């Protein structure tokens, strides 16, 4: 094929949803295979690797995110049904869940408060702007809830969406070494913490390790979404009164 033909083909493909849908699946398949070969090492997180590869490809081909998302939205859409699907392991482990209800409620309240206060306090100490501080407050909870909270307390929802993702990847990478350092062997506690601190991406990591961990991570993500929606506006209000 002559150069003109290649250019024409590229111009066509670059804007078609098929290209970026395929690229998303290919980047993830490669990242997942790489992590498998590395013995499921937490640092080789497949979301982190796939996103890094795709960001480089988009930058190299000067493709706008909107064009990319036209294709990738078909994968993104499945997040809704996948959230509903968390009910399946939950219902199967209902006795386990009932027995651990009190520890879960205590842990999610403490985890939510610690996440909000340590995030805003650290960013404040490092000189972040007020808009960034408010956008950071709800960063541990799942994207739609976090964006709604950011809107309510005066943060920037688009920034919060990105901070949520970065927190999720960080939690997925950290959870195994941190829990091992604490000497915690109970997969209910480990998974629940992953879900509270790092929502769906932490939950995905928990399912990779163990189904019981994944089930409790799903509960942690759902409960923390509810608790943070109540606590974040309260804590922000309190902080603004004190300052």
């Amino acid at each position: 094929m002559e150069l003109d033909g290649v250019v024409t083909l590229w111009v066509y493909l670059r804007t078609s949803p098929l290209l970026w849908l395929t690229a998303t699946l290919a980047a993830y398949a490669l990242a997942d295979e790489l992590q498998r070969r590395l013995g499921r090492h937490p640092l080789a997180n497949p979301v982190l690797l796939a996103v890094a590869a795709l960001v480089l490809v988009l930058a190299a081909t000067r493709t706008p995110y909107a064009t990319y998302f036209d294709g990738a939205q078909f994968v993104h859409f499945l997040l809704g049904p996948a959230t509903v699907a968390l009910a399946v392991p939950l219902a199967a482990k209902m006795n386990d869940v009932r027995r651990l209800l009190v520890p879960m409620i205590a842990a999610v309240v403490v985890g939510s408060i610690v996440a909000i206060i340590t995030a805003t306090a650290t960013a404040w100490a490092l000189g972040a702007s007020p808009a960034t501080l408010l956008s950071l407050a709800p960063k541990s909870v799942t994207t739609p809830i976090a964006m709604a909270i950011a809107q309510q307390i005066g943060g920037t929802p688009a920034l919060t969406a990105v901070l949520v993702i970065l927190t999720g990847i960080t939690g997925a990478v950290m959870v195994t070494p941190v829990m091992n350092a604490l000497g915690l062997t109970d997969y209910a506690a480990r998974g629940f913490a992953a879900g509270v601190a790092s929502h769906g991406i932490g939950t995905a990591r928990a399912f990779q390790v163990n189904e019981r961990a994944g089930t409790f991570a799903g509960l942690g993500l759902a409960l923390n979404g509810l608790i943070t929606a109540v606590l974040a506006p309260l804590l922000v209000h309190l902080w603004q009164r004190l300052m």
Partner: protein
Amino acid sequence: MLNGVLLLLACQLVGEAVARGAGLSVPGPVLGLALLAILLLRRPALHATVGPVAATLLSNLSLLFVPAAVGVVQLLPLLASEGLAIAGAILVSTAASLVATALTFRAVARLVGA
């Protein structure tokens, strides 16, 4: 397979409709999760319908976050200007939240003998 997909989508649709209709801040899929859990507890036979599809989705859950995560490219200038504060806040707070949640879980579980 088909009925499993249908059940997931129907639960999500009802969840979205209730969340929007009642003006709740809870996302529709989370209400759909609660609805499906209730259905499964009432009729355990539904596990055979929805189980395989749910297992497929959940075993590839990480993939589903990739498109949203690539959105990081849109905020690279801001992330560069406040990068240190943002990275510090995320690292400290994620570690602190993991530790606080897990230790509280264990302590309270021992306290109530669960």
